[in-house]
């Protein structure tokens, strides 16, 4: 069976990269003694997939992974066993079986919602105030890192939602599909540039709140439609 697990990547693990988190999950699965399936072949590995790689530096509130199991396990049992095997800052908080032949989670992700808080108070206010004029633009150029270097892209259509909360924390939903994908850091740089700031070494706290998928053209939480 395929099990869907929602997990949280805590504050302390912000700087741990995606591959390291993946390895930690694999080891936790091994510790859990759950009947996890292994790939065939010379170098058997656990069949585990993440919906999306986590950027280094971000906290994850609701990340998704899928695990292949050799025999059926009750979702509550899965959650319990995993949490016994996981370190404190990495916890599963919900599980359910996935339809056996559905597409991989990774293929279903369309967007993600984020919270980004610039730590410097003045700068945060300034950026907050500039949002209306920022969103009025039809074209927002940003630099996207690619394999062969950097290229300029227009991220305006990828900003599905952008709003500042009362304290200036940015609440945003950014598209995340293969061809059309905008990272929070790209948006932040554009915002800073919009404010005439060229130094991008701004300190901020970043949280990914949700991964989103599409259901009949509406964006929904990925865990609800997968």
């Amino acid at each position: 069976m395929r099990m869907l697990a929602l997990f949280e990547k805590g504050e302390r693990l912000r700087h741990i990269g995606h591959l390291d988190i993946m390895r930690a999950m694999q080891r936790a699965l091994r510790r859990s003694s759950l009947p996890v399936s292994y790939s065939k072949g010379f170098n058997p590995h656990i069949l585990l997939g993440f919906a999306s790689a986590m950027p280094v530096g971000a906290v994850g509130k609701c990340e998704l992974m899928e695990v292949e199991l050799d025999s059926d396990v009750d979702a509550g049992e899965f959650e319990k066993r995993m949490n016994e095997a996981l370190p404190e800052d990495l916890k599963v908080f919900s599980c359910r079986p996935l339809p056996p032949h559905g597409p991989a989670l990774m293929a279903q992700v369309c967007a993600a919602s984020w919270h980004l808080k610039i730590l410097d108070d003045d700068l945060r206010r300034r950026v907050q105030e500039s949002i209306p004029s920022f969103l009025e633009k039809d074209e927002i150029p940003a630099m996207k890192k690619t394999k062969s270097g950097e290229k300029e892209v227009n991220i305006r259509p990828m900003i599905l939602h952008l709003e500042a909360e009362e304290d200036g924390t940015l609440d945003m939903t950014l598209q995340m599909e293969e061809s059309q994908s905008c990272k929070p850091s790209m948006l932040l740089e554009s915002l800073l540039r919009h404010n005439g700031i060229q130094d991008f070494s701004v300190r901020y706290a970043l949280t990914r709140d949700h991964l989103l998928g599409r259901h009949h053209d509406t964006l929904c939480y990925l865990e609800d439609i997968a």
Partner: protein
Amino acid sequence: MDLYADRIDDRIEAMLEKVQKASRYTGGEMNTQVKPWDKARLHYGFCFPDTYEVGMSHLGMKILYGLVNAQEDSVCERFFMPWTDMKALMEEEQVPLFSMESRRPLCDFDMIGFTLQYEMSYTNILAMMDLGRVHLLSRDRERDEPIVVAGGPCAFNPEPLADFIDAFMLGDGEEVTLDVTRTIRDWKESGEPRMECMKALSQIPGVYVPSLYETDYHEDGTIREMRRLWDGAPEKVRKCVVTDLNTAYYPMEIPVPYTEIIHDRIMLEIMRGCTRGCRFCQAGLLYRPVRERSLDRLMELAVSLEKSTGYEDISLSSLSSGDYTCLAELIRDLLRRFKQEHVSISLPSLRIDSILKESLEETQKERKTSLTFAPEAGTQRLRDVINKGVTESDLIEKVTDAFQGGWSSVKLYFMIGLPTETCEDLDGMADLCQKVNRCYFTVPKDQRAKGLRITASASSFVPKPFTPFQWVPQDTQEMLREKQQYLKEKMKTIKGVNFNYHESKTSYLEACFARGDRRLGRVLLRAYQKGCILDGWNELFRFDLWMEAFEEEGLDPAFYAFRARSRDEILPWDFIDAGVTKEFLWREYEKSQNAVVTPDCRKGCQGCGIHKWKGVCSYAHAGTV
């Protein structure tokens, strides 16, 4: 957490955003815990004087970390040497060296313990104390500062660190560590002055407190006398020996790092000590006698460690695992037990004999990594001098086996600068590589793996205390460099051989500190003040600054590295009873000069001295000496 902690936490977070490899400093790994601080009566800061990746690969650290935390009244937290970028930020932001667990500063701990694995880590000890706001010199430390202890193989010549370390623990740490923690805990609660703690520590067998001794020198720089400053201090300090490894503490859980480290696996120490008697090998003599863990105990440990870590690799560790009595059985049992879990067992590479071949092929098919052999010297004569019991035919046989078994990559370890070495011995190394190359081509093409790779590494010999070569001079820099060049040219002509050698400057400094005396503490301090840190990392090693430090302190490094000692010279470590006697070592030295070998003492006790401790060595039978 208190306010102070919050503030520090925020500053640490800010630094982590800027450094490379922040995962070295984040903590929170599986099987680590933040034990309640206030409930503990003793807080132990375990310091590994190198980077996280190196320190976390070290088995001894994991044992002691588990041991101290297993005590209800104690907290043990880890510290590592920060990389240069992090160190610079910490200094700039005035954030003290903080522990991996609760992020508390080093100076908050009741005691801190350094593990001394190699001489080139000594400046890191100073750097860590400095960053952690602990006075560098023992004599400057206040009543409420941590007691600084150290252990590990380099503690067998503690003198170069005598100014900085309050107490050294010699030998096996499993028992003495607890004696030391309890003594410090009681002293801390007693309110007595620091000196009382020093005296109390010196009463524990295996503990050396340098401030209770003083050394005088002859005009030529050699030692005249080492004197006790307090009558109660022992004249000789005898190393600790854990007699039964089966009852000795071993952790059932070990921390599992997020980031990849050097040895990222379960290490099962199957035995301790070695009876082979290689004359250059300090570990082989320091860890005598040989003690084995039983099959049952090893299986029990393997099962619980696999369960608690989720590691997919188990490696069997010891100085010469091939000598473990029931090796084949152990491996078979492990393979059988962990078949379902897809655990792979890394083997001591020297024992690819026929019993194991089959089971090996079954599980190791995916990892044909390179096999390692250590002939150490190029000719039989020189191998006899160093008592390395490997013959050329042995080696060729094993290498052929390996090539037939599907390996195509072989590593050969050599040493240059061994006592009595001549040109012929260097030629012998090249010869051996040539023969290994030929072995490969004798295996029919369709039966061997593609891409022959022979890596020949030559390290420079460093004479060490408590070995038969403790009296001999090291080769000078010029000699070593000449030999390296000579070999480089020779090896070039052999197909498939990749030759590399170690920086001889590092070995030079290592030689100074390995056999140094107390006065070297001044050089160490000065070198550190000039900016020497992380000397084990080639890119950071500043030989020039070290030489300046020697010069400014009026000490000659050649005196320590290149000088032959006479038999009656008082050596800086003579006050330590490491089990093996000076007489035995001298006898071995004389035999080496005549290229006479000493057989493995399991086949007959050679009277190394350990036998005088009743019941400690299971191979020493009365009358065989």
